[in-house]
């Protein structure tokens, strides 16, 4: 459906340096799917979204939706944003304060090149407002809406034009935490029900994991990994992804050899030998980094009879309600462990930390590669 090929954008910043905002960004979004661009601020995700929207003109690349090319550097095509027929929800919602709720939502139909008659506008707008649950507020001034309602209105406005593609630029980042959680569910329900092809931009990994069919993690203008949410979380391809999506412990390691099981390797680390999982085949002597999520650790008072178990000392602990976070000292290393509050050893006591080999993901060591 949406296809972005080799997108490249650069622009000068305030100091006159060239910023490579997007480099070789390519991806496809199948019809009806929600695709997320995830990354820290300045990674190029918003530039990519704005290029799809037509609000920015990239240096080179090609963007097409179905059969229609909206941008191509090679053929010198650039369709103006107002002729692309993409719906967009902005980070600030961009609700026009001088119009009522109805007027805001009706605007795309009123300015459409194909004239829509009054009754038709009424019918369409009220249906969309109904979908987002704002039909009872249609005549209200837009500025009198709460944050969550403004967010829904922005969505309704993007939907009234029955867009081929929906673009969402951090739509939930301006809401408070509780409302954000609720809107997450609602957004997901709407997207799935209407089967809208959607590109979603966020820096919040929780949102990305919760909403997406597929996620592209971006860093420094490049896509570093594309995959389904579970893949991204459980099988990060590199240190950046493991670190940015969720939190992770990292252990530098050297491959010793293959285990009997598929994709499991024996590696040597500072805290001892352990078993780890790898997607790409590894050979003995390879330098890797083992990534382990804090919630994938098991703490116990007695040595468990599993593999990958080590003895450590509780260095510090934080009670966070749903769980407790421990810093466990293993030799010179500090490991982060997240466990249910039912197990709560004192600071300074001896504990055993167990790691499931499936969850210890061996990834290429970017840092060491760079040094070499």
């Amino acid at each position, binding site marked *: 459906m949406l296809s972005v090929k080799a997108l490249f954008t650069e622009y000068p910043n305030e100091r006159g340096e060239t910023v490579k905002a997007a480099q070789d960004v390519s991806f496809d979004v199948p019809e009806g799917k929600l695709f997320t661009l995830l990354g820290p601020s300045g990674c190029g995700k918003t530039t990519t979204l704005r290029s799809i*929207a037509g609000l920015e003109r990239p240096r080179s690349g090609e963007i097409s939706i179905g*059969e229609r090319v909206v941008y191509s550097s090679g053929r010198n095509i650039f*369709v*103006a*944003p107002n002729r692309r027929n993409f719906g*967009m929800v902005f980070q600030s919602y961009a609700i026009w304060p*001088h119009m009522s709720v109805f007027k805001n939502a009706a*605007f*795309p139909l009123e300015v459409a*090149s194909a004239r829509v008659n009054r009754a038709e506008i009424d019918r369409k707008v009220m249906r969309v407002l109904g979908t987002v649950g704002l039909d009872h507020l249609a005549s209200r001034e837009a500025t009198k809406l709460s944050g969550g309602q403004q967010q829904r209105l922005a969505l309704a406005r993007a939907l009234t034009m029955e867009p081929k593609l929906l673009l969402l630029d951090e739509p939930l980042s301006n809401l408070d935490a509780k409302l954000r959680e609720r809107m997450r569910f609602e957004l997901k329900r709407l997207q799935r029900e209407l089967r809208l092809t959607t590109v979603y931009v966020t820096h919040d990994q929780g949102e990305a994991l919760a909403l997406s069919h597929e996620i592209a993690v971006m860093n420094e203008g490049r896509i570093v990994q594309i995959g389904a949410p579970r893949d991204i979380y459980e099988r990060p391809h590199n240190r950046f992804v493991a670190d940015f999506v969720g939190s992770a412990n990292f252990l530098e390691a050297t491959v010793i050899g293959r285990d009997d099981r598929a994709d499991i390797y024996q590696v040597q680390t500072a805290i001892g030998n352990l078993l780890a999982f790898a997607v790409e085949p590894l050979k003995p002597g390879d330098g890797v980094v083992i990534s382990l999520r804090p919630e994938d650790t098991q703490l116990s008072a007695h040595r468990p009879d599993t593999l990958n178990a080590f003895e450590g000392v509780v260095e510090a602990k934080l009670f966070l309600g749903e769980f407790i976070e421990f810093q466990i000292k293993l030799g010179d290393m500090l490991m982060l462990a997240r466990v249910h509050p039912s197990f709560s050893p004192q600071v300074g006591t001896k504990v055993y930390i167990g790691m499931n080999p499936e969850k210890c993901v061996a990834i290429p060591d970017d840092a060491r590669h760079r040094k070499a």
Partner: protein
Amino acid sequence: MSGLAESAAGAAARQSLWQRLDLKWAVIGVSVAIVAYFALVPLVFLFWQSFFTPQTATKAAEFTLDNYGKAYSSLETARLFINSLQFATGVAIFAFTVGTLLAWMNERTNTPFKALFFSLSIIPLVIPGILFVVAWIFLGSPKIGIINLVLQNWFGTKYVFVNVYSIWGMIWVEGLHYSPMAFLLMTAAFRSMDPAMEESAMMSGANILQVAWRITLKLSWPAIFATILILFVRSIESFEVPALLGLPVGIEVFTSSIYRAIHQYPSQIGLASSYAVTLLLITSVGVYFQSRLSSQGNKYSTMTGKGFRPRTIDLGRWRYAAAAVFFGYFLLIVVLPFLVLLWSSFQGFYSVPSMAALKNLTLDPYRFIFSYPTLAQSVWNSLILALGSATVIMLVTSVICWIVVKTKIPGRWLLDNLASLPMVFPGLVLGLSIMIFYLYFDVGVYGTIWIMFAAYITRFLPYGLRYNTTSMLQIHKELEESAQMSGASWATSFRRIILPLLKPGLLAGWIYIVIVSIRELAASILLYSPGTEVVSIVIWELWENGQYVELSALGVLFIIALFILVMLAQYVGKKFGIKEAR
């Protein structure tokens, strides 16, 4: 199949691009052309003219450097320079001191009635410069001045206590006239300051005066400097006070000399131009420093988004003294001038208030004014000029400031500077250069109302730009982008999104320009001809003819009309400003 569809889409894209560019670039092009024409043309011809000899019936103008030679070598010019500097510096310091003291009392102390005072602070705007000066002549002239007569009566002497026809009198009148501006500028500076800075000084054990001197004033340094510069530039380019108070006793400054050079026979336009170029250089330096100051004020950045007001300082019993200062000030700049005009407007011929004169009250001056032959025409001219220039300026600058604020078109800073350029033109200099231009390029504009229209547009262009820019900066760019994403073309989103959101700034700027155009005198005085007089010119003519009581009657009516206009502005501002202030 797919290739065909793509090329069709491509063709459609190219065509739509062409359509989109069409109107957008036409509007932008026209706006830029208007600004460039109005801002640059007068400047260029002023320079050009300053190198020519006067044109007379027998002799054509010739190229010469004599104007500058004469302007810069004579002792006369040195005196002119010193007078101007003394006058402008005196006014700036006096107005700044008064304005700052009042602003501080109003913002930081618990002086009674200060809310009332603040809402009254806009009233001085309604008294045009020429009427203010005339009123102060009635009050402070050595022969007929009420103040002198009252004091002489009390003490039984013939001693002249006050004399407005002196450099100190000029500074006093002009300083009072500009002090509301200093008050408003310093109030804004005090309001934008983070109150925590003063509160922490208070907590460190500083007393009221130490806080005011060592924290409040020191932190406002950029604002103070900018305010003094503005006051200096405004007073060095002011015309009414030097012409009415200085010329009769031979105290000349640049503006009055320019006026005199033109009004002798043959007109010394070249000499006037070289004076004008000098004056322009002085004001340019002032405006340049002021703009640099406001663009790099970050070091002192005291702006915070915090909405709370600072704790006010308790003056104790002194607060009544402070209130008395407020009332005294208000008496000097509004009540006394207006009352003296009102008094003289009911007299058959001008006489000092007394029981005897009270019996001579008459409506004759008003009858005279209403039957004055050019009155209806001049009111009509003033209205047409004010409404027309305000509308054109606000619409043109809305496009200009959209380009400057919202786009990344290269060279947009140049456009911004170009539209701000008229700021350096004193009204008289602007009038002079426009006069020269249309005199030499006869396109049928000279001697018509259009030449004044051109002058007003040029003169008030920077104000329109400033009001629009303030408003434009508050419009989030996503508001416009979301209109684009909704399928709106540039023209549609400008008309339906940008202009409505700009409304508070548009309206405020429009009303301000209407008011200042109606009061305008300095540029009009060189450009009017029979049939194109405006109200302020009629007042000027009455003064020249010595028709003081008639002038007073017209002045009273004029002030009342402006007062209604200002109240209307306040009302409109409240109604539209607050709702869309987000």
